[in-house]
């Protein structure tokens, strides 16, 4: 009699244990609202997830993952609420352009400064990178200096617009990291830029 009760208790515990021991992977929309794709592989097989709101479940690595099946957004929200609450915002990046061989901003980019300041305030960001670049016209050395001067111009403008200097980092890449790859000594306005990354 006691034995039957013990066995029953054991089975209940086992079942409860199985229910909580479930592993689950859910495909989600990206920060841009698009949908990516991924593959889940165990030692016994793999499944592809390519639709948002679908999930694969895995018992352990010696079994195949289940085929993708929809999961309600309520369940997904409930399971991941704590992680979602502290999930960081995707950093925002702004590109400012310069006149040819100059550290003077184009008029349009001049106006972007206010937008950047607003983004910093909205996110309460203390982590802003100001990254200078040039095109490939002129020597490496000249372009390194020019990219630094360009980054400094933007740094000073942001500082004048009340962004704390201690929250900003200046980085400069010269002509080494073009947005649009070109041959050496080619003028390319899209590469004469400073990127401001607000994180």
């Amino acid at each position, binding site marked *: 009699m006691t034995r039957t009760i013990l066995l029953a208790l054991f089975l209940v515990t086992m079942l409860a244990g199985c229910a909580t021991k479930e592993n689950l992977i859910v495909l989600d929309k990206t920060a*841009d609202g698009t949908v*990516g794709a991924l593959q889940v592989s165990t030692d016994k097989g793999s499944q592809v997830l390519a639709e948002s709101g679908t999930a694969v479940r895995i018992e352990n690595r010696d079994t195949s993952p289940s085929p993708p099946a929809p999961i309600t957004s309520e369940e997904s929200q409930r399971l*991941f609420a704590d992680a979602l609450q*502290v999930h*960081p915002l995707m950093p925002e990046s702004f590109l400012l352009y310069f006149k040819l061989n100059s550290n003077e901003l184009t008029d349009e980019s001049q106006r972007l400064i206010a937008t950047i300041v607003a983004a910093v305030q909205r996110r309460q960001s203390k982590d802003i990178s100001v990254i200078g670049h040039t095109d490939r016209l002129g020597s490496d050395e000249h372009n390194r200096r020019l990219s630094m001067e360009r980054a400094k111009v933007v740094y000073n403008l942001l500082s004048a617009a009340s962004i704390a200097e201690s929250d900003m980092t200046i980085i400069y890449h010269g002509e080494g990291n073009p947005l649009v790859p070109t041959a050496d000594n080619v003028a390319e306005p899209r590469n004469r830029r400073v990127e401001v990354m607000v994180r």
Partner: protein
Amino acid sequence: MKKPLLASLLVLTLALLPFTMTSAASKSIGKVKGLRGLVSIQRNGKMKPAFPNDLIYQSDVILTGSDGAIGILLDDNTLISMGPISRVAMDKFAFEPATNEYAMRLKMQHGTFVYQSGLLGKLAPHAVELETPVGRISMLKEDTSFRAKIAE
């Protein structure tokens, strides 16, 4: 006379080795952006509590308590957050576009995770290795976001 010199050079090299290794590993790979409750970082065998804006380093293991949650921004803009009683090991991370060095290996050991791929996913998707005790997650598209609950 030659031998002691060689020997002392060897000793010197061995003595300096840990420092060189530490300095190579001492570049941060990300930052704590969101935090709630108790979260610990295990680094070089020691545990320390995590605070907002703390830097994350390669080989860190991050653990959340029963009321803890943490959101991390990696240097390539990968976002990873975890809920309570979760554990992740930041085994490997390199994001150096200037020298074309890309690597990432994260072990999501247990708990709940929300993941949004960053620039590594765009520039070097095959360099991204996401391991769990029950299997591997590989990105098939440049920009992918998922949630994972690992019970094992």
